[in-house]
């Protein structure tokens, strides 16, 4: 069948052997690829008895049927695993070039099982898989490993972990193509636990496409739509994602000093406008992406991709730091050490509050830009207090008796939006299957930017239906796997039409949303099987009980409970958040 390579590569690191076998195409039709396929396979492979950092956990790398076809942003891929940070189901996805290359090597999915006795790296070429000793690579940073293993964007691509993954930091990322990351939830620690330093791929053939004429037409249409949209043709390329800083701050939704305030007086200094004016070198883009939102920035000490909005917020407003140079350097360091910037920055912010309140003995305090780099290094190498920070804010704050100071949901640090000023975002964080996340749907468009239409950000009633729609849509796009920015210029309908053209299977827009709903419910079932309950669909007490005292969101807390009840009903779940049998039957999940 076209689109899919119809092949799974299954690697056992215990024995350093591999096998290949056909992808179950019924499964592929229902879950498409990427996050969806990853969730379905993880359901079978990793049960509640498995410790995330044990050899029994697996890493599932998956692309989608559009990957490497040349469709706009068809470069992405995902990794699915059980998260060592949250204990939930996890997937993280990334752009760049590696995903495209992996598809061209002839695989839809790679499952990595077991644990190598000694450090190892894997080399994949069409029809060939080899295992190499990685003793000389262990301890090396990401840029050095990537260069040493021969990164070449269009021919040979490197995915690896840095010291953070080797040292089993629960917020460690897997890095690809040097500076791209599968960041959230600690997949780098799972890779480190397997003594797997890197996976290098060389591909050859693009996937088969059933209807070339229709494919070319939709490619042309999509190019026109992306060029016509001021969001994808001007806003993202001109200022990058950091342009969000001023608007989110303006409406009083920028979490500041570990969510103690929601406006930061230094926002302008760390904004996209300032980044562009003072530090931008050039734009960059992923494979087959005409948007080009990536910023390459430079200070006296570093030059590299980023920082993105979330990173700039995490090391900036969250830590009370308005030194953009220090933030750029912290971002570069995170990429080189292989660590999630959101969780790293938010964990430092939590440590700063613990320190200022006298709960820990540390020189960390809000505004100390000079301590950012040291803190990131300490985390990655588990040095001194960094050993506590390496496991994320919730474990750290719990150890010192104040879990309430961790700004996380299900143990994952929240991104750059204070949900007291965006009620729907609060529901989204609380119900996100991998923990607090802005990529599992994001209410920023509706609640602040007016995309596609402005809704009242403080309104509670009726908000759950928007959240559900966004969650399902994001799960669908993550299963294709495409970049969500494409969706700012191109409607879901185009993705369905393109999927039909490539695979020959007719998908309508509704089918794609149904795929997303199926994936969301499967992830929910996974978490329930792990022992998560309604009680875990919550937010830090600060956001539920402490009203903001100033700014445009003054007086607000998150009104979670009424939204959650409405959400469960809207999802077809019972009052405890368990999918009802009828819903599971409707989604063809009843046999699980």
């Amino acid at each position, binding site marked *: 069948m076209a689109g899919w390579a119809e092949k799974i590569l299954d690697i056992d690191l215990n024995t350093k052997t591999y096998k290949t076998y056909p992808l179950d195409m019924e499964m592929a039709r229902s879950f498409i690829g990427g996050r969806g396929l990853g969730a379905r396979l993880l359901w079978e492979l990793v049960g509640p008895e498995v410790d995330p950092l044990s050899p029994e956990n697996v890493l599932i790398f998956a692309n989608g049927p559009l990957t490497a076809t040349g469709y706009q942003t068809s470069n992405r891929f995902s990794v699915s695993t059980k998260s060592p940070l949250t204990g939930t189901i996890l997937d993280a996805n990334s752009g760049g070039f590696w995903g495209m290359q992996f598809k061209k090597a002839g695989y839809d999915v790679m499952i990595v099982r077991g644990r190598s006795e000694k450090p190892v790296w894997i080399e994949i070429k069409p029809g060939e898989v080899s295992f190499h000793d990685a003793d000389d690579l262990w301890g090396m940073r990401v840029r050095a490993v990537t260069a040493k293993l021969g990164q070449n964007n269009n021919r040979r691509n490197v995915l690896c972990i840095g010291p953070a993954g080797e040292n089993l930091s629960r917020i460690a990322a897997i890095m690809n193509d040097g500076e791209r990351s599968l960041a959230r939830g600690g997949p780098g620690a799972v890779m480190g636990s397997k003594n797997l330093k890197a996976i290098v791929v060389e591909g050859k053939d693009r996937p088969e496409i059933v209807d070339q004429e229709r494919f070319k037409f939709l490619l042309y249409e999509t190019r026109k739509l992306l060029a016509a949209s001021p969001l994808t043709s001007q806003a993202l390329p001109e200022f990058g994602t950091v342009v969000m800083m001023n608007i989110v701050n303006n409406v009083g939704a920028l979490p500041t000093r570990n969510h103690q305030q929601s406006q930061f007086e230094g926002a302008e200094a760390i904004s996209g406008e300032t980044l562009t004016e003072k530090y931008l070198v050039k734009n960059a883009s992923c494979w087959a992406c005409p948007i080009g939102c990536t910023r390459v920035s430079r200070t006296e000490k570093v030059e590299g991709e980023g920082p993105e909005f979330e990173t700039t917020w995490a090391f900036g407003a969250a830590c009370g730091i308005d030194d953009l140079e220090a933030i750029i350097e912290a971002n570069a360091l995170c990429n080189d050490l292989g660590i999630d910037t959101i969780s790293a920055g938010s964990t430092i912010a939590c440590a700063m509050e613990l320190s200022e309140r006298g709960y820990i003995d540390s020189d960390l305090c809000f505004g100390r830009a000079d301590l950012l780099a040291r803190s990131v290094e300490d985390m990655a190498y588990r040095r001194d207090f960094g050993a506590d920070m390496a496991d994320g804010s919730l474990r750290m704050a719990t150890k010192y008796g104040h879990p309430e100071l961790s700004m996380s949901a299900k143990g994952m640090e929240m991104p750059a939006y204070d949900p007291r000023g965006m009620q729907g975002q609060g529901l989204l964080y609380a119900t996100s299957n991998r923990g607090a996340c802005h990529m599992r749907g994001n209410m920023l468009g509706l609640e602040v*930017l007016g995309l596609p239409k402005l809704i009242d*950000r403080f309104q509670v009633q009726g908000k759950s239906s928007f959240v559900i729609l966004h969650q399902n849509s994001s799960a669908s796009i993550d299963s294709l796997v495409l970049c969500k920015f494409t969706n700012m210029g191109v409607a879901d309908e185009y993705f369905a039409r393109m999927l039909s053209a490539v695979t020959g299977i007719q998908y309508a827009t509704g089918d794609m949303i149904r795929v997303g709903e199926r994936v969301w419910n499967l992830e929910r079932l996974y978490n329930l099987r792990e022992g998560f309950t309604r009680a875990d669909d919550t937010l830090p007490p600060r956001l539920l009980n402490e009203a903001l005292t100033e700014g445009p969101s003054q007086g607000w807390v998150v009104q979670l409970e009424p939204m959650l009840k409405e959400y469960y009903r809207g999802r077809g779940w019972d009052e405890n958040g368990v999918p009802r049998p009828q819903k599971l039957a409707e989604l063809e999940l009843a046999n699980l």
Partner: protein
Amino acid sequence: MPVISLYAGLRKIAGTRDLTLEGENLAGIIRGIGERYPSLVAAILDGDHLRPHIIITINGQNVDPERGLEIPLDANDHIAIFPPIAGG
């Protein structure tokens, strides 16, 4: 007088970050902008309506473009105008 802050590409068009203008309501302020910065107002308005994806806030509260621009202002109000922006 209300202060108007401009963001992203609008700063380059106007050559400034902030403006102060007299005006009893938002529509009047934007007319005033048009007199001083015709190219700026052309980036904001299409006829009498906001261009798609233009965001205006008054004291941090979004102006709903569907409700029009006849919104009364106080002297101390802060108006923020953003061109189409995206990210997250």
